[in-house]
């Protein structure tokens, strides 16, 4: 595990016992980036559910399979995007069924099928892409506007930042 400049990169094996380790790391990173407590819980839950899905579905529960997790701080750019946290999960298992990436209706009271809903609830963006060799899930959680404005005032957005117009 390495952590530098707000970046986190983990190379994991598909072991459910590692989920608690990842949760701790993502929770701490989210706190450091200035998310609220509820947002930190949401992001952590989203990553945890995504990893569990990879272990359970992409790898069929097989242990020892590779998973890469990368967290990156997104800096604000005028008219393009807000500041936030980008999390990318890469695996080399069976691609997900896109029909199941929408989740199921919550008015059905039955076990299972809640993970996708919890991922979507915890982040602002969920993008899934796959090719022959790997599957890539990208999650983004934007910082609250107030947080972004505070960073603007402190000049923490770097040279790429320009004040919004209009």
């Amino acid at each position, binding site marked *: 595990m390495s952590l530098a400049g707000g970046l986190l990169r983990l190379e994991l094996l598909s072991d459910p016992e590692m989920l608690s380790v990842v*949760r701790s790391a993502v929770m701490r990173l989210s706190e450091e980036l200035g998310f609220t407590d509820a947002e930190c*819980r949401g992001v952590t*839950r989203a990553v945890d559910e995504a990893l569990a899905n990879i272990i359970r579905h992409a790898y069929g529960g097989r242990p020892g399979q590779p998973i890469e997790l990368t967290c990156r701080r997104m800096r604000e750019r005028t008219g393009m995007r807000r500041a936030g946290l980008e999390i990318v999960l890469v695996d080399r298992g069976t691609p997900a069924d896109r029909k199941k990436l929408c989740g199921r209706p*919550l008015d059905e009271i039955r076990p299972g099928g*809640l*993970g996708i809903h919890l991922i979507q609830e915890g982040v602002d963006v969920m993008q899934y892409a796959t090719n022959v060799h790997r599957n890539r899930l990208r999650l983004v959680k934007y910082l609250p506007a107030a947080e972004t404005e505070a960073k603007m005032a402190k000049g923490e957005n770097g040279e790429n930042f320009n004040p919004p117009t209009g």
Partner: protein
Amino acid sequence: MKISTRRLDKTTVLDISGDIDMAHSTELRRVVLVEFRESRTPRVVLNMIEVRYIDSSGVASLVEGLKASRDVGSRLILVGLTPFVQEILRLTRLLTIFEIYDTEEKALAS
């Protein structure tokens, strides 16, 4: 996750601590289903005051336990839900389907 069992007359209290996630939810499911399907326990209380985290597989185990309790005419009661557990049950719109009490005393008196 750890599960300790206490038997009180017609009630079984399961004291659960730690994280109920993919690594441990199967064990919770097994213990709860045994209480209803094999032991036919009239009332099972899950004391969750020391549960730090629960994921969707843990929630699924609770739902399955609830269904099993209804199948045999028993009761599954959740006690001492931490804010994190309450939050995930609310997000999955399951908070109202469970019988929930703040304390074990209230659950046992119900």
